[in-house]
Structures are given as structure tokens and as C-alpha cells.
């Protein structure tokens, strides 16, 4: 398919990436290149569709004699400016012009998706012819396993024909008669090499976006042996790998969840067990407490009994003491009485004597009363005498204030005593009234 070269250049400028980036990607092929250097002093290489010549530069650095061909002259101009050996030619034609068993390496990077299948087959057959025994064919092309590539970004380039699954390209090489082949999947993200990182996005878009089929022509065993290591490695990430990883992770997650659920179930069981045990323990404690209380009650009642017995004993002791004291008091009283009886006897005699000595009314009074009795006025006379006597006695006695029973009488007390304050006033009055005064003191 032909398109305008400037268009293609502009396109490549935008999408291809810088030289250094491309070169760094091409480092992946080193394991295949270095054995070739061992076999041949200066291996010959042909790069179909060399583009800007990065691969040619690389090969040159590695010691290869590399030749490149391309259909874009402006690209070739850039190569020539770099001093690379390039020619304007079609890939198939160039291969047909090459003598058999002359090249150590034939490469075509991102070429095969631009040509029809028959041309591709022919190219591969021709490549087999031109390669030396043990020579390497490298065909790199976008990897449709990457779902994004296969469904979308492959078609960004209008000149791509259709995606080539790796198995197909590998089979082409196989069918063509190459001794062995391997698929290198390339340019995947570095972080996806970490086994543990996987996400749905990675599965959809993380598969290696490019792959290369590297095939080797039959050679002697010891020649082939040099490439054994390179051919036995696994390169890149396939869709199945990533999908598998994803599935594994999912399975792992499910497993873990199952574990957790198991654990949870076990925990619930244990919890129920613990609860029952706790209830049992609480019940046991309550019953122990009740037993204890009962024991305490029993103790208390014993103590109470003891206390009451002690109280009874104390009562008896106190009673005895009391009786003892009373008896003692009685004895003392008897003693006192005995000693005093003598004195009291004498006292009683004395009293009798006094009674007998009580003075009778004098002779004058006796005469008067005899006369009064004779006159018959003794009674009234005696009454008059008593009245006079009472009057005299009351005059002599100071009047006592009558007791007041109802409230409302005078409030300054008529008591015969004074409060301390009033007493001191009274003393002062008394003193001052009896002292001699200066004239005119006011």
C-alpha cells in the first residue's frame, strides 16, 4: 500500500517515539545477537524496512556488518546521513538478490503487517535460503493478544493490513523449515513483571504490545547450543498469562474469603461456647453467693446467739453485783444504826424533857382567861386576840406580790433580785447617794 511519504513521516514522528526509546527497546534482542558474534567475526545482517536505522546503528555497535533497505527515500536519506549502509528496495526483491547462506541475521521490524500473506510466506522462505546455518530471522510486529492493540491501536496505522497472531507467524516460520522458533513478547510495562500486581485493566491492556518471532536455521549441535539459553527463556507477557494471573488472584481472594468465613464461623462458635460458659459461671457465682449468704446468715445467727448469751450473762453478773452492793449497804446501815442508836435514844429523851418543860401560860394570862371563862366571853375574847395578832404579824411581814397567771401584766419584773447590770447600777446609786457631794455638781 502506498501512501504519501511525508504523511508517513509525520505520522511516524508523532507516534513512533524517539530514537533512544526505540534503541532501548531493541536491547531485548541482545541474547540472540551476542552468540552470533561468537560464531562469526563480522556477521552480516540485512534489515528489511530499516526506517530511521536505529537497528542498523545498534547492529553496527554490536559489530555486525548491517545493511538496510526501505521503500521510503527520505528515511533512507536520514540513514545515509548517519553513514549507514542502506538501499532503496523492496524486501522480497532484496532477499531474492541475496546469495544463499550469506547472512547471519535477517530482520524485519514492523514490516510483516504491511504486506499480504503470500508475500510474507515468500519472504520467510527466502530468508531461510539466505541465512547461514544457525542464522537468525527476526520478525517483529504488533501483538494482537493485547486487546487494545488487537482491537484499536493496530488500526491506527492505515497501512497495516491485519493483525498477525503470534501463533500464525510462528507457524509460518516453522512451515518454512526453520529449525526452531520462539516468540518474544516485548515492550510491556516493567511493573507488570511483579507477579503480585494485576488488575483488570492490566489484563485488558497490559499484555505485551509487540512481539517478535525469532527463528533459527538448522545447524550443527554445538552451533545451536550457543542460542539454547536465548531460546529457552520466556519473554514478555501473554494474554493468557495475565488472565491466568488475574484468575489466580481472584481464586486466591475467594480462597481467602472462604478462610475468613470459616474463621468467622469458628469464632462465632467459640463465642457461643464462651457465652454459655460465662452464663454457667455466673449461675455458679450466684449460687455460691447465695450459699455464702446463707453461711453468713448461719454465722450471724450463731453470733447473735453468742451475743444474747453474753447479754444474759452480763445481766446476771450485774444483778449479782447490784445485790452485793445492796447487801453491803444494808450491812453498813445496820452498823451505823447500831452506833447511832445510843445517841438517838438520848436525843429522844431530851425531846421528851423539852416537851415536859414547855412553858405554860404565865399566871397573869391564866387569871385573865379564868375570869373570861367565868364571864362567858372567853371565846370571843380569844378570837379578838387572834385577829389582833394576825394584823400585827401581817404589818411586820413585807407584802408578797400575788402570782399572776395570765399574761399581760407589767413587764419589769417585781422580783426581789436584780440582773447583774441592774445590780451594778444599784451599787453605784447606793455609793453615790451616801457620798459627800461637791456643791453644784449636776
Amino acid at each position: 500500500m502506498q501512501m504519501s511519504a511525508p504523511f508517513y513521516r509525520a505520522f511516524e514522528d508523532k507516534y513512533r517515539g524517539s530514537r533512544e526509546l526505540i534503541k532501548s527497546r531493541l536491547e531485548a534482542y541482545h541474547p540472540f545477537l551476542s552468540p552470533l558474534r561468537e560464531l562469526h567475526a563480522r556477521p552480516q545482517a540485512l534489515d528489511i524496512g530499516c526506517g530511521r536505522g536505529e537497528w542498523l546503528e545498534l547492529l553496527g555497535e554490536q559489530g555486525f556488518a548491517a545493511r538496510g533497505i526501505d521503500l521510503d527515500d527520505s528515511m533512507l536519506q536520514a540513514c545515509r546521513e548517519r553513514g549507514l549502509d542502506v538501499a532503496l528496495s523492496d524486501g522480497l526483491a532484496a532477499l531474492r538478490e541475496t546469495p544463499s547462506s550469506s547472512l547471519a541475521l535477517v530482520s524485519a521490524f514492523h514490516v510483516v503487517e504491511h504486506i499480504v500473506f503470500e508475500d510474507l510466506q515468500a519472504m520467510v522462505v527466502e530468508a531461510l535460503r539466505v541465512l547461514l546455518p544457525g542464522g537468525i530471522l527476526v520478525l517483529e510486529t504488533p501483538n494482537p493478544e493485547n486487546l487494545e492493540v488487537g482491537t484499536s491501536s493496530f488500526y491506527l496505522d492505515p497501512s497495516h493490513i491485519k493483525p498477525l497472531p503470534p501463533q500464525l507467524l510462528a507457524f509460518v516460520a516453522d512451515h518454512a523449515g526453520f529449525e526452531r522458533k520462539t516468540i518474544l513478547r516485548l515492550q510491556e510495562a516493567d511493573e507488570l513483571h511483579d507477579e503480585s500486581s494485576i488488575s483488570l485493566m492490566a489484563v485488558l491492556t497490559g499484555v505485551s504490545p509487540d512481539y517478535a518471532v525469532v527463528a533459527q536455521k538448522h545447524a550443527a549441535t554445538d552451533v545451536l547450543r550457543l542460542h539454547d539459553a536465548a531460546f529457552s527463556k520466556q519473554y514478555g507477557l501473554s494474554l493468557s498469562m495475565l488472565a491466568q494471573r488475574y484468575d489466580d488472584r481472584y481464586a486466591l481472594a475467594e480462597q481467602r474469603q472462604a478462610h475468613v468465613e470459616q474463621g468467622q464461623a469458628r469464632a462465632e462458635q467459640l463465642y457461643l461456647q464462651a457465652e454459655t460458659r460465662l452464663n454457667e459461671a455466673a449461675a455458679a457465682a450466684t449460687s455460691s453467693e447465695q450459699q455464702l449468704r446463707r453461711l453468713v446468715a448461719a454465722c450471724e445467727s450463731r453470733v447473735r446467739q453468742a451475743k444474747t448469751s453474753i447479754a444474759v450473762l452480763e445481766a446476771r453478773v450485774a444483778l449479782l453485783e447490784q445485790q452485793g452492793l445492796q447487801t453491803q449497804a444494808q450491812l453498813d446501815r445496820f452498823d451505823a444504826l447500831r452506833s447511832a442508836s445510843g445517841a438517838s435514844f438520848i436525843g429522844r429523851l431530851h425531846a421528851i424533857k423539852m416537851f415536859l418543860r414547855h412553858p405554860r401560860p404565865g399566871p397573869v394570862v391564866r387569871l385573865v382567861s379564868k375570869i373570861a371563862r367565868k364571864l362567858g366571853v372567853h371565846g370571843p375574847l380569844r378570837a379578838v386576840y387572834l385577829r389582833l395578832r394576825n394584823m400585827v404579824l401581817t404589818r411586820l411581814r413585807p407584802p408578797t406580790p400575788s402570782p399572776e397567771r395570765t399574761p399581760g401584766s407589767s413587764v419589769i419584773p417585781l422580783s426581789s433580785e436584780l440582773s447583774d447590770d441592774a445590780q451594778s447600777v444599784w451599787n453605784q446609786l447606793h455609793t453615790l447617794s451616801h457620798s459627800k457631794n461637791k456643791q453644784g455638781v449636776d
Partner: protein
Amino acid sequence: MRVLLDIRALIPASGSSYAPTAPAWVFCRALAKAMRDKQHDVHVLLDGQQAENAAQARDSLKDILAVESIHIWLSPSPDSVRTDTARKAVGYLHAAIVARICPDVVFDATSVVLAGEAITAPPSEIALGPPIVRATALQHFDGNSCADAQAIKETIERLERAAVQTANQPSSAERLRLAFVSPLPPQRSGIADYSAELLPELAKYYEIELIVDAQRLKQPALSTQFPVRDAAYLISHAGTYDRVLYHFGNSEFHEYMFELLEVVPGTVVLHDFFLGDAQWHLEHFSGKRNGLARALYASHGYRALADRMQRLELSAVVAQYPCSFEIIRRAQGIIVHSHYSLSLLKHWYAESSGLQTTLIPLLRRAAETYTDGSREADRRELGLTDDDFLVCAFGLLGPTKLNDRLLRVWKNSALGASPRCRLVFVGENANGAYGDAIRAEIERLPVANVEITGWADEAMFRRYLRAADLAVQLRGRSRGETSAAILDTMNHGVATIANAHGAMAWLPKDSVCMLEDEFTDAQLDDALSSIWRDAELRKTFGSNARSYIAEHHSPQHCGEQYAHAMERFARCGGYERNPLVAKVAQLAPDLDAGEKRVISSAIAANFPTPRPAKQLLLDVSSMVYQDLHTGIQRVVKSLLRALIESPPEGYRVEPVYGGSHQLGYRYARRYTLKFLGCPEDTLDDAPISFAKGDEFIGLDLMHDPVYFQTPYFRQMHNAGVRVQFVVYDLLPVLLPHRFPQGSADLHTRWLRTIAEFDGAVCISKAVANELTDWVADNAPHRSPKLRIRSFPLGADLSTVASKGLPPSAADTMRTIASRLSFLMVGTVEPRKGHELALDAFEQLWTAGHDINLVIVGKQGWMVEELAQRLRRHHEYARRLVWIEKASDEYLELVYAASTCLITASEGEGFGLPLIEGAQRGLSLISRDLPVFREVCGEHALYFEGQAPALADAVRHWINMASDGIQIRSEGLSYLNWQQSAERFIEAALWKRDTPV
């Protein structure tokens, strides 16, 4: 203009109605209001003889005038004042009271009566100080017509015209006569020397005569300059002296002055604030019976008396209590020598801080300045050279002088080590252990530069004063004695080190090297060293000290201050009672004994003397008359004991009593002494005197006396005493059917009486609520004014008061102990619920429970049937025990043998038995009443209702007990009596503001 309305005669005698004088009363009120509106200072004088009417009159005037402008005075009743002389004396009393109010004009309302009506008291003929305006007779007055308004206006104009400014009293030209009562030299007292120095100065102002103790002193100094008399002369010639000056100190030299001051008032110079030693001397050596005890009681109350009788040694009591109030009270004015004494006055006798006092420094004649030569001569005589450094401590040695500390510091300091420095204690060594210790310490010193001189006469004293380089005067633990020695050292210009103790703290810091009151040894050491080394500092201190003494303590200065103070005391005391007494004394020979007593009481009641603290008058009448050991009396006793132990701040606790035959209360001194365990005859029961600010609290429950003494309470109330009563319960009113006939009326009358006064203190919140409700129903006009508070009773673990067991005690105890016993304690009365308990237990016994019901309590009223039932019960003496009379000892034993206390009362004031039961570990079963809930909280088993409910409760308790889960009463919280007394005081003195 201050106007006094003398309305005394308008208050009619009790029994007659207000009607005849009502218009006159309305007139006076209208006059008072009109004058107040004209911005005059209106005062009203009411006669308090009929206390109730006076109180009513005061209340009716309260909306016109401020309370302080309404004065009530107590006149003797007209029946007791019969002779003209007595009436004249009462007139003098009235004049003095009017003069105390200091009005500019007096309006005599006695003549404002309707024509033709008799008036109860004749107008006084005594001339009052201010001019009097007599009212004209009024025909009719009802306050509404304009003629009445005109009458009022006219009266006001007359008053304003008559008012004149009181003229200043002219100062008398001639010299007044002064009686100078003091010990004098050669008596060995510092005060004697002091008086000797003061007399010449005072003689410039007065004609002085010396009054000395003729028994002790034969020939006092200065007898050539002044006439010398003795105490008897002063008593008989008291009227001839214009002023009297007493010098009081704490020694035996002042004994004769105590009696003198009682009868002849005068100015007192208080050299010592603590006079306990002098009082004890009076008691012990001069035969004044119980002198110290009376002094302690008068100044400090029962606590001091109890201390003296029981707890403290004599020396401790005398050191702790000043006992000086009797002197202070009778003084016309008090002169002290230090601020410290003033502060002591305020501390010990706070209530009388309004007394007239003045501060006059101790006088010191300025020491003669002398030449250096004479000083050197003195020093050489003492054996000192010029380089020697002499440190002296002047005064009698003793623990209060801190000599031991000085010695210790001296020993450890640089001065002690130097042989050039000498320390001399100028004074006699102390007796006893202290003196021996000092002497031993001195002998042990490494460098022998310390000595004690022994008793130093004047000459030696002065020699040391002149020779000293440094004086150290320290004091500690003193009681306020002014230190004279330091003034001597300062006077002689000696640099002095002193500590800020007592009076010395007020000396200026630049005249004396002042240490702190509690100084450390290091500080004293620093002071000593710095003054030793720095001669300039010494000189500065010395000269400053000398000039300070010369300025403040010079005899002229002091003498002048004495004269001014005495004149001021005499002048300002013009309205107090001494002049009044002097006037009345002139009439006294003509009064008969009864009238003289009545006049004395009236004078004392209207012009009360100062007292040391406010009185807390507690009515304990029932116990004074008959100690029945009832529950209420136990409460009163416990409160009394707690309050006497720790009286509230600023109050004296005074138990008082009164009867139902004679109005008036007396101090229950003999009873209180017996109560405290002191000899009863130390004090006498005099009638009480009261003044504004006192508190009267009726502690016990006496229906008749309280009702009878109501006029006396009103009189107290009028005088400003707060009257309150303790309410124990309202049971006779709330449960009348449970009490004998007439109890409800009696109790109602009592409640009505007490509701008329200031407040009620109840023994529980429940009772307080009941009382509030009762007052709201029965005396609603008092509801907002009667303050009702409550306080919880205390329950100390009681000591067993009464002992003695009846012979049947042994068997009874065995019965009680043999089974589970349920106890009921309390007099068997209807409301205590014994019948209910008996019914309940009958049910329980029928149901087969083998339990005891023990009842302890004597038979009360209205329970004859129940008593029969109890005594005849078939379980009597088997499972039913009734102990009718139990001493405290017996009761304790019964408590110990019982398990559970039942309280089934229908009503209680507090519920002390519950607490007592809980204290002894019994469980409680009680009726669900608010008061029991208040006391027990959750620590009791409650029942509600009648006998079945109680039976259920007992059954329930037995079941719980067998499981050990019965409600225990251990956690019941209660107060002890000390705490209860505190809460009582809070409630009674209105300290808490939260109601109830």
C-alpha cells in the same frame, strides 16, 4: 432638723381600747409623714411597757419611717412608781433617753387627747435638753379634712421655730479634780515607776489626789506633792472628784482597784491585757469568793469555767484566758499602750469594739545625754576596755524572753569565740528548770564571756544601759505585755536587736534592728555580727532610737495625751448612764427599797453595758425545774453540751429558765454548773439582761410557761433579740385522737404563740413541712415571715447513764435470748402502734412462727385496755415480754439480745430509736412515713397499713434472713452531736439560705 415625737403616753394600758386616743394617734402619724416629706429627720419614741401595743405601734409606723428611727424604751410600770421622788427619777431616765437620740426639738404628744379624757401619765416636769413643743388639744381629727391639714401645718411651723442648735458646752475654767488610783514606788512594780514619772506631767492639767492601797503601802513616793488617800475615802467622797484614773496590771498591787471600779467609774489604763493572775490573787489571798471563776465566766463563758474546774491547770488557764472584761466593761474609756492590745481587744471581746479606746505610748523621760567621759568611767567600773564589745539582755530571765536561744546563737557565733566580746544578762535568773538549764549552759561554754547579774537595782541597771554597745531584747509566746526594757535601751541610744513579737512589731525599722517574729538562729547571728563589725550602723540605730523615744514617748507628750483622752471620754460619755446615775443618786436617799430596785432595773434595761460577745440564750426551763430524762430533755442536754464545748463564733452560750408564776427569765447558772460537773455555788442565778443582736432559742417543749411569758418575749423582741423555738413535732395536732383530751388545744395554743415570733427550728424536714402547712392553714399572715428551718439530731454512741437491773432481769434475758426477738422501744402510747404489733404477732404465732415480741417502755396514757391485754395475754412472759421500767444498762442488754427493731408509730418527730437500733446492729422494720424515710433511707424494711402488713413484713424479713439477704442497717449514716449542733447553729442563726 431632727425631730423627736414623744408618743409614749398615747399607748393605752392593756385592757382599754385604742378608741379614745385613736384620733390622736392618727394625728401623730400624719404629722410624722408630713415632716418626713419636708425632709426632716423624724424619730419616734414609744413606751415599751405594754410590749404588744408597742410592737403594733412600731409595725404601723414602719411604712412611714425607717426601723432605726423608731425607738422603744422600757419604763417601769406605773404601779411600781408611787412616790414623787420615784417619778422624778423616771423623768431623769426619760430625759437621758431623749438626750441619747440628740434631737433638735421634741414634740410632746401627751396633750393630744380629746378634751375630757384622762391621760395615763402626767407630763414630765423635768426640763429636757432640747426645746419641747406641746401639742394643743384637738377636738376631732380623722386626717381627711383640710382643717386637719391646717392643724398639721401649724404644728410643723411651731416646731421649726422652736428648734435651736444645741449650744457647745463651755469648757470649765477651773482645774478639775482627779483621783489617781495606782501602785506607787517603793512598791516593786513597773507600773509604780511609770506612775511616778507620769504624775508630775499630769499635775499640769489636774488637781490630783493619790488613792493607794493603805494596807500595803505606808509611805508612797511623791506623798509630799499630792494628798494621799485610801480606797474607803474614794468611795465615800466619789462625788467630789470630777475624773478618776485607774492603772490596772496583772499583779497583786491592783487588788483594791477591782472593787473600786465597780462603784466609782473612771478611765482605765490597761497595762496588761491578761489579768488572770490578779484575779486569782484576789480569790486566793484576799478571800474574794470564786473571784477567778467569776471573772472567767464573765469574760469568756462556760467553756473557760469548765476548763478551769476540770481540764486545765491553773497556770494554763490564766495564760490562756485574759479575764479582763469586767474591768473593760466598767471603764468610761480605756487607754492602752500598744496596737497589739487593741488587736487583742478586738479578738477576745468582739462585741464591745465600740468602746472608747485610745493608744498612748509608754512614757519615758529622755535619758540625759552624757559625755563620753562618763561612759568610759562606767565601762571601766564594769571591767571593760575600749575594744571590748558589751552585749546586754535586760530584764528578768524566763522562757518568754528567749534567753536560751540567744545563748545558743552566741555560743556558735564569732562573738562567742572572741574573748573581747561579753554577753551580760542584766536581771534575775528564772526559777526552776529553765534557770538551771541556762546556768548549766553558761558553765559549759568554751570561752567564759557570759554572765548573769542577778537582781539589778536602778543604779546598776542604768550603768549597764550606759555602758552597753548592743542590747538584745527578744520575746516569744508573750500575752501582750508591753515591754518596757526595750524602751529603756532605745532611750539611752543603745543599738537594739528585737524580734517583731507583740507590741515590738510596731517599732520603726530604722530605730531597731528588727528580726522576724519566728526568727532563725542564722538571722540572729547575722544581726549580731553585722552590728558588731559596723560601728556606723550602731551609731545610726542608737541615735534614731533616741530621737524616736524623745518624740513619741516624752512625758510632756504623754501627759498631754492623757489629759485629752480623759476629757474626750468624759464628754462623749455624756449620754451614757453614768451622769444619769449621778443625777438619780441625788434623789436616791428618798426612794424606798422597792422603788430603788425598779429604777435600777429600768436604767439598766435602757442603757445596757457592753458585753464581750452576743448571747445565745437557750431556754432549758423544764430541766432546771424537774429533770425527767424524757427524749426531748435528752436532746436538749446533748445540744447544750455540744454548744458549750464549742460555742458559735462571736456568741456566748447562756442557758436560761423561766417559770409560769413570774414574768422574766433568769440565767440557769447553777444548773449549768451542775451539768458541767462544777461546784454549784460558784455563781448565782440573776435575771437576764439582753440587748440587740442576741438570740433566744426555746430549746425544750413547755406549753404553759411559753404562753405565760409571751409578754416578756415580746419585750425581748422589741429590744432587738431574735426569738425562735425548736419544734419537735406536731403530733397532738395531727393525731388528736391519740392524745389525751385537751392536748390538741394546748399544742395549738403553743404553736400559735411561737408562730408570732421570728422563726422555728424543726428536728427533721418532715416536721418542717408539716409546720409550714399548719402555718399556712392556721396563721397565714405569718407564712411569709416565719422562717422555718430544720436540722438533724445527733446520735452519739451513748454512755450508759443510769444503771440498775431488776431481779427479774435474769429470767427475762433468758427468755429474750432463747428465740429470735423483735424489739419495740418507747413509751406505750396509742400512737406508737403497740396494739398493731400485738395483732400482727398473734397472727404470726398462730401460723407457727417461734419468735419473741419484746416491748420496752412504761405505760403511758390512754392505753389501759392495751395494758390489760398485754398483761393477760396467754403468751405473756413466754413469747411476749413487756419490760416497763428499764435503766440504760438494762436497755443496752436487751438491745444486745434482740435482732430486729420494729417501729410502727403513726407519727414521729425524728425517729431517734431507729438510729439507736442501727448503731447496735439491729435490723429495722418501720412504717413507711416521710420522716422515717428521711432518717433511714434504704436501710430499713418498710411496711404500710395495718397488722396484716406488719405480719407480712416480719415474715418477709425472716425469709430474707434465712438466706442472708435481709436489709442491713450498717450503712445508716447519722451525725454525732457535735455535727448536729453545727447544723443546728446554721439553721438557728440563719446561716444557710436554702429553705428547710
